[in-house]
């Protein structure tokens, strides 16, 4: 038992005050009797005429004392002490993520969470208030802190689960920011617990956890990506991963749709519990995925499953465009031959001096890619991507990486699309000397020697590219087939000849730089609703209102860019929104969750639910006794 306001015990001093008043106020009724002889004999017995006996005989005094005692206790606000001290401000955190839409026994998990929260609201005592916080990838308070149960109920009823993944962090941070302004707050999390542990700073806010959900069986698409096929025919390779976090094998069909037409189908007879199925669809250039196309991947579990949101995912393939590149350096016939066969590529061969002059000119059209063959600019030009062959980009490594003679080849990243058709084993011991390229942020080693990377990607604030840290012309590599494959992959990779838009997760930000002349963007959401959204001052489109699965279409025009007829040029972009969340596909309700290093379990929730506030009952008893005192006073 704890006392929230023990200082109110001073109120108990009213008890002796009442006793004193009792003695002072005692009015006796005169009654004439035949003789006081017998009564005198009675009162000679001190036992029955003691002051305490008088108290015992005074029901009114007893009731008055009880009223004071109960009122004093109520003012001291006794509460039954639990491990977590709950409060009078209930921060009700409702998970509205996709997994809460799982239907079990005729109702969704969110229905259950709603019912629990509603019960909590109904059980609120006088003086208690609540706020409802809905959270998925983000968190928002849908009511103010209020004791208006009707408002809380109404806000609760309009909530429904969305399609987003869950992040508990923003919800906890919001709850803490609200709870810090309250004297006595407790946060209650209504969720199936399928989110990553939050490792934020320790919080003083008491937390309770009300897990919901019972089902476990669900398999869904958790990963979708596409890479341009680097072969001569082009095309796309689409990687799909289906995960089965359930406890039973999941069989089903995976199909790839171009528009509404299924173009590829694959089946799996049973993904093991906890296992994954990684499947790759290959699409040639003319067989779909040629450009500007929307590819939809559909997972159809044979026995159905609990969550539909993770059974579909989308990817957009932008149309291929011609890559303009500058080849800067001394004459190089091997390089010339390799570049000449690349499709959709327009090559300008320049000497270093000519390149320097062009870069210095203001009105020159910069290429998509510059290949620096054994030469390097004084300063990295902004805009194009860069491929350095036997040269180092200026300003990227400081100090300059060390040169190593005949570095032994150890390994290369065979998974990287640049290395898909490339074999470097013939270079082992064949490179006369090369720079060992240290690791950088956002950099990836493509070829490793014993001393370090010999080929590495890099990305800085102003540029990105690939560095081949040795002079390939001094090796036999240009004479091998892997060299043109490497060049083709590098040009496709850096020149974005085929661009795939893998899209975003629900709730994530769409950001498009349309240009300074753009005034507004026309957005059509997956449901077909179109809105006009004003561009920011710098002409950007930014929106996080992406809580729908499917395709968002954003169209705009720049008044400064007109076509040959003088009309503003129209641009459009399609952004797919897919769930692709293993946490959401894992619908097995979690009995415990980890918040700021501590674990909350259902059991701990029960303990805190056992907490009782007694003062209203004490006050009610005091009122009853007061009424009893009034009754007996008048009856007498």
């Amino acid at each position, binding site marked *: 038992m704890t006392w929230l306001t023990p200082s109110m015990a001073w109120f108990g001093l009213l008890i002796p005050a009442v006793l004193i008043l009792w003695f002072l106020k005692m009015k006796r009724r005169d009654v004439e*009797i035949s*003789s006081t002889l017998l009564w005198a004999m009675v009162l000679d017995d001190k036992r029955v005429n003691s002051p305490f006996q008088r108290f015992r005989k005074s029901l009114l005094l007893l009731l008055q004392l009880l009223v004071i005692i109960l009122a004093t206790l109520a003012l001291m606000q006794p509460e039954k002490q639990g491990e977590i001290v709950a409060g009078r401000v209930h921060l009700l955190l409702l998970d509205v993520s996709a997994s809460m839409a799982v239907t079990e026994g005729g109702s969704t998990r969110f229905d259950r969470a709603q019912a629990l929260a509603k019960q909590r609201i109904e059980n609120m005592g006088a003086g208690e208030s609540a706020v409802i916080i809905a959270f998925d990838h983000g968190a928002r308070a849908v009511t103010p802190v209020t004791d208006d149960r009707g408002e809380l109920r109404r806000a609760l009823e309009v909530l429904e689960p969305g399609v987003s993944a869950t992040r508990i962090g923003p919800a906890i941070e919001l709850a803490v920011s609200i709870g810090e302004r309250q004297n006595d707050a407790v946060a209650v999390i209504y969720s199936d617990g399928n989110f990553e542990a939050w490792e934020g700073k320790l919080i003083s806010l008491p937390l309770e956890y009300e897990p919901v959900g019972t089902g476990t069986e669900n398999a869904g698409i958790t990963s979708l990506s596409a890479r341009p096929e680097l072969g001569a025919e082009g095309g796309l390779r689409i990687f799909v991963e289906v995960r089965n976090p359930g406890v039973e094998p999941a069989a089903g069909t995976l199909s790839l749709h171009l528009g509404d037409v299924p173009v590829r189908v694959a089946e799996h007879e049973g993904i093991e519990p906890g296992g994954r199925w990684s499947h790759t669809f290959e699409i040639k250039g003319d067989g779909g995925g040629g450009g500007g196309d929307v590819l939809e991947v559909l997972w159809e579990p044979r026995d159905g499953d609990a969550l539909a949101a993770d059974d579909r995912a989308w990817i957009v393939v932008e149309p291929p465009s011609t890559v303009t590149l500058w080849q800067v350096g001394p004459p190089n016939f091997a390089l010339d031959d390799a570049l000449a066969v690349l499709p959709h590529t327009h090559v300008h061969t320049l000497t270093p001096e000519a390149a320097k002059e062009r870069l210095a000119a203001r009105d020159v059209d910069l290429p998509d890619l510059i290949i620096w063959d054994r030469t390097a600019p004084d300063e990295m030009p902004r805009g194009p991507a860069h491929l350095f062959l036997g040269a180092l980009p200026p300003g990227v490594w400081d100090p300059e990486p060390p040169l190593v003679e005949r570095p032994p080849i150890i390994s290369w990243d065979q998974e990287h699309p640049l290395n898909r058709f490339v074999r470097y084993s013939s270079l082992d011991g064949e490179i006369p000397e090369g720079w060992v390229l240290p690791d950088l942020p956002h950099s990836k080693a493509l070829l490793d020697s014993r001393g370090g990377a010999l080929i590495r990607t890099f990305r800085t604030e102003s540029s990105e590219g690939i560095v081949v840290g040795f002079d390939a012309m001094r090796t036999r590599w240009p004479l091998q087939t892997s060299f043109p494959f490497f060049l083709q992959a590098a040009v496709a990779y850096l020149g974005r000849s085929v661009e795939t838009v893998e899209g975003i997760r629900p709730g994530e930000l769409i950001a498009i730089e349309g240009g300074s002349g753009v005034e507004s963007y026309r957005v059509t959401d997956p449901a077909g609703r179109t809105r006009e959204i004003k561009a920011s001052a710098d002409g950007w489109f930014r929106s996080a209102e992406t809580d729908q699965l499917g395709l968002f279409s954003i169209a705009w025009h720049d008044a400064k860019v007109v076509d040959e007829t003088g009309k503003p040029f129209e641009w459009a972009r399609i952004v797919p929104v897919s769930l692709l969340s293993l946490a959401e596909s894992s619908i097995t309700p979690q009995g415990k969750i980890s918040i700021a290093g501590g674990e909350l379990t259902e059991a701990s929730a029960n303990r805190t639910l056992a907490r009782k506030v007694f003062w209203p009952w004490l006050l009610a008893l005091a009122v009853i006794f007061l009424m009893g005192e009034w009754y007996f006073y008048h009856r007498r």
Partner: protein
Amino acid sequence: MAEASPHPAGAPSREPLLDKEFLARIERLSLLSRATLTGRMRGGRRSRRRGFSTEFADHRDYVPGDDIRYLDWNIYGRLDRLFIKLFEEEEDLTVCILVDCSRSMAFGEPNKFRYARQVAAALSYIALGTEDRVGIYPFDRTMRAPFPPVRGRRNAMRLISWLGDLEAGAGTGLLESLTSFASAAPARGMVILISDLLDPAGYKDALRTIAGRRTDVHLIHLLSPDEIEPVVAGDLRLVDAEDGETIEVSVGGRILEAYRRTVDEFRAGVQETCRRFDIQPLFTSTGTPFDELVLGYLRARQIIG
């Protein structure tokens, strides 16, 4: 409590103490004394004194001067000695009825004082019907003027009327009153004391004064139902009707229980005292109907028969 008494000041009621119907019912009753007693005149009651009636009692040796008509010649023939036959002498009985007229008797519902006078009237009527001598001795602080002993039923109505005119007086002086009575009362006879014995000075010494080997003493201890089982509650100031003494008391269940225990102890004390002084007590309350007391309890106790 007697706060609802119709005659708090002890004023006489105009209603006759005994109605004719009741008088007819007690016409044939007589007072029964535990012992034959000496009276002044020969009456309708056997006396321990051997006299000259028809009831043989004993023999004794003849002494000169004895009436030779009572010589038992049969014994003289057998024993050659003279014996006088002794017969129980029929004598009248002097019945003294002491009525407590203190103010405490003027309480209760029914009123104790009227009840006491009714009992006294009934007993007197019965006694006068058997040629006994009856005297009424009212008292409060002291003895008041008595109704002197009379005999014969012809005096009954006068006596009852006199009783009806009696009024309750002031406080109670049991010892002084009874001492005064004992000094002037006949040495033998029957004494009936009707009182509540509520005297702050006590009752034991007073009862001692009227007890005697040759006196058949009866006590009718009279309380009202309110005095036996008070119906009061709360914080009270009890005012003594006789002396104005006050007692403050907060009456509750425990107090009432103690009071009842005190009444029981008081009555037990009276009974013990009566046993010591050979007094026949009868404890009654005005809650017992008057005729039931006379025709039931008194007959059952063989006070009348």
